[in-house]
Structure formats: C-alpha cells, structure tokens
C-alpha cells in the first residue's frame, strides 16, 4: 500500500531542543496508528508536525500526494477558548472551511451536512447551544463532528478520549473505526493501552524519539514501555549540537 506519511529522519522541537528526535518510517495509506508514550514524550509535537503547525528542526515529513488541507486535526480541548460566544452549529460549520473559505455561503446542502455531523455524534438539539455551556464529553463530540465534516483522507487526533466517560468513548471510538473502514488514514495520540491493544493495529511508542514502531502486538511490549517510562523529560540547556544532524548534512 502506498505511504500516506513519510518521516525522513525528522526532528521536531522547540527552541532547538528536540521533542521528537530522528524519527524515520512511514504510515501506509488507510492505516490506523496509535501514538503512545508518557507525558512529554513528543506525541502532540509529532501530530502538530504532521499538520504543519510545528516546523521540523531537521529532516522532513512528506504527505503522500495529499494537500495539507486534506488533513483533519483534532486538537486537545485545552487549546480551545471555550468562553468565545459561538454556537455548536457555527463551530462545527468551521469544518467546511475548504468549501466556504472567506466568503462562501452556508446553503441548504452545507446546512444539512452540518446537522448530519452533529446528529452523528449524538448532539441533535444542541445546535444553538454556546460551546461554553457544554460538558467536556459533549465538547469532544463537537470536535469529532467537525472532523467528520472535514471529510479528510488523513485524520490526526490528539488525545481524543481524555477525560470522557466510557459511553462517549465507545461512541467516538466507533467513529474512528468507521473512518478506518472508509480507507482513511488515522493517527491518534492515546494513553489507554487497553484500547490501543484492542482496537489499533499499529503502534508507535514514543519517548522523545522512537522506541518501537510496528504491529501493536510487537510494539506494545513491557520492555518497550519500560524504556519509554525511563525517558528524560527535561530539555538540557547545555546540550551539544546533535552530531547525527551534522553527519546527515555532510552526507
């Protein structure tokens, strides 16, 4: 199967410090990949690198023949200003940006698409509710509805099941599997190892660098998890320049 994503010895980070160091490999088109690792392992940074929010410090990420706008990204809900006065309908409707852009109107068809997406996540009747009045689980459903509406080939989910109840998790996981069934590529940063074992065929164990990557049964071993747990989370201000990058550039 053709690669949807290729990591060419990519390093992502902040202020020259790597948060994801020297990642190589590729994600096949239509794959369902879990990205796991402790806090500070670089999961969110990797996902932000894929969607273009964080630029690589070295190396490159190649999207397999898709436009950057053909990626749907679900950020952690903490990144969203919930106090902003916007309704569920309008918020979900932003998922149609590719079609509407600055001036495009929301016609009958678009309106129906938005209502269908809201219904698909079980929030019918919430269309006019301001997002600030939603619970954490309801907000997560809203974010999924927006991803649905984006109709993207590559879907990137940053901790999509954090702090939500089991019913909501089950409903939203069903959506993730539906996307996978439709042949879309899905990457999700997760913490629930049981969920990863039961539902995700491929896993990347990350600890500021790749620890293991492959079929979940092979990557998610106690040994690999132990290596990830021992990761040094802090940046080292006195660290030397990365020799590997120098070699790569020389080559």
């Amino acid at each position: 199967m053709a690669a949807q994503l290729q990591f060419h010895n990519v390093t992502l980070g902040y202020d020259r410090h790597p948060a994801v160091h020297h990642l190589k490999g590729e994600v096949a088109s239509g794959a369902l990949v879990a990205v796991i690792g402790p806090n500070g392992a670089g999961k969110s940074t990797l996902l932000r690198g894929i969607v273009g929010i964080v630029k690589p410090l070295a190396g490159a990420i190649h999207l397999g023949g898709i436009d950057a706008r053909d990626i749907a990204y679900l950020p952690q809900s903490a990144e969203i200003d919930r106090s902003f006065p916007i309704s569920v309908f309008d918020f979900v409707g932003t998922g149609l940006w590719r079609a509407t852009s600055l001036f495009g109107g929301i016609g009958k068809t678009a309106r129906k698409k938005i209502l269908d997406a809201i219904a698909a996540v079980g929030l019918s009747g919430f269309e006019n509710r301001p997002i600030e009045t939603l619970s954490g689980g309801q907000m997560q459903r809203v974010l999924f509805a927006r991803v649905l509406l984006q109709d993207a080939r590559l879907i990137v989910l940053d901790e999509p099941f954090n702090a939500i109840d089991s019913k909501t998790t089950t409903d939203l996981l069903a959506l993730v599997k539906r996307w996978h069934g439709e042949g879309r590529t899905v990457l999700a940063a997760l913490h629930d190892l049981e969920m990863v074992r039961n539902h995700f065929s491929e896993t990347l164990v990350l600890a500021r660098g790749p620890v293991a990557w492959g079929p979940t049964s092979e990557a998610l071993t106690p040994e690999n998890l132990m290596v990830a747990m021992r990761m040094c989370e802090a940046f080292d201000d006195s660290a030397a320049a990365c020799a590997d990058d120098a070699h790569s550039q020389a080559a």
Partner: protein
Amino acid sequence: MIYDALIGPFTEFEFMRRALAAVIALSLAGAPIGVFLMLRRMSLVGDAMAHAILPGAAVGFLLSGLNLFAMTFGGLIAGFAVAILAGVVARSTGLKEDASLATFYLASLALGVTIVSIKGTNIDLLHVLFGNILAMDDQTLLVVAFNATITLLVLAVIFRPLVIESVDPLFLRTVSRAGGPAHLAFLALVVVNLVNGFQALGTLLAVGLMIMPAGIARFWSRDLTAMICIAVIAAAVSGYAGLVLSFQTRVPSGPAIILVATVFYIVSVLFGRIGGLVRQMFPGRHLEA
C-alpha cells in the same frame, strides 16, 4: 421641554449634528472592533495602542499645528508601525503579544510626549489628550466616516478567520494561512479606529467607545452577532446621551460620553442577563431539565 433638552441642541446647532454623526460612525465601526478586542483578551492592548499613536499625532502637530488631517495621518503611521512591529515580534519570537506591545507602546509614548513638549502649550496637550468632538469640521467628519466604512468592509473580509482564530487558533493554522494576515489586519483596524476616536475623545479616552460597549454587551448575550449589535447600540446611545449631557452641563464632551457609557456598564454589571450580580443573587427557581 423634553424636546428642547434632548433634540433641540441637534436641530439648532450644526456642530452638535456633526458631533452626533461622528459618534454614530465611531460606534458602528469601533464597537465591533471592541467586541473582538475583548473576546481575544486584548482590551488593554487597545488601551496601549491608544498611547502608541501619540508620537505620530505629535509630529503632525509639530509640522502643521492643530491640523487634524496631519495629526490623523501621523497617528495612523505611528499606530501601524507599533501594531505591526509588536505583532511581527510576537509571532516570530513566541513573546506574548501584550509583552511585545508594552515595550513598543511605552517607547512610542515617551517619544510622543517628548515631541509635544518641544513645541506644545498646555492647551495643545489637552486637545491631544482629551480631543474635542464639538470642534469637528466637515472634512474631519468625512475622514471619520471614511475610516468607519473601511473598517466595516475589512472586518467583513476577515470576519471568519478572526472568529476561528479567536476560538481555535490551531485548527485555523491547519486549514488556512489566513490567521496571520487576519490578525495583522485586525490590529490595523484597531489603529484606524483609535485614530478616529482620538479626534473625538483624545488619546486617553479613544479606546473607551470601543471597549466599554463590548463589556456592556458581554452581560446581555452569549451570541457573537447579538453582542456586536448590542455593543453598537450601547456606544451610539452613550455617544448621544454624552453629547446632550455635555451641551446641558458644559462638561467636556469626551469625558461625558465615557461617563454615560460607565453608567450603562454599571447597570449591566448589576442587572445583566449573563452573569449580572442581581441575577446571581436572585436566580429564580431551578428548572426541571
């Protein structure tokens, strides 16, 4: 009697009609900008920007005296320079926008006061600091109306990215590159409206007719469109009532307008539908679902 007090001044005196037209133009353009400033947690940024336009206005004054065109033009250049420099530094270094702006506006304010002190009198300084909407001539009114029109047109263009960037900036960055230009255009609109307000209310109070109506609107609605409408109405009514108050009591017009808006703000804090103190104290019986 009521006619004489509330309408008479405007039918009788042309300068009052001009002032009324100016506050309506300021309200139509400035209040929506104020709503976005408040929602983007940039209320004090607006205040800082108001001070940042001072050196440009002062240079205009130095070159051509109390010529409002020259002062407006100078103010626009200084304001744009500070807004864009602060915005660029914040976006390219990761420094918070308010910290970046604080540095630039303080430098700008110091420069402005220095320039005014080279050639100004106390009266000139008072005009710069507090404005005089009652002394507005036709040409200045046209500039104010033109700026308001431009503001509404540009706001219509950047409305969507501005909303999305306010609520979910990471999402906007993944679907569009419009966030950066929209933000800079918004800062430019802040400057244009501060310069507009500067003619009427002076540098110290120019931001008042933008931010206070937005604060009032927040107590009455959770819907953005409704908030913008409420803010525009609150600004226009404050402007009208302030002019009447100023005419009847000889209080300076700028402070009168802002004091009326303050009264509306206090009423909103007390009786507002969303988070008003009285409503919190007496919420009524709880609902079934």
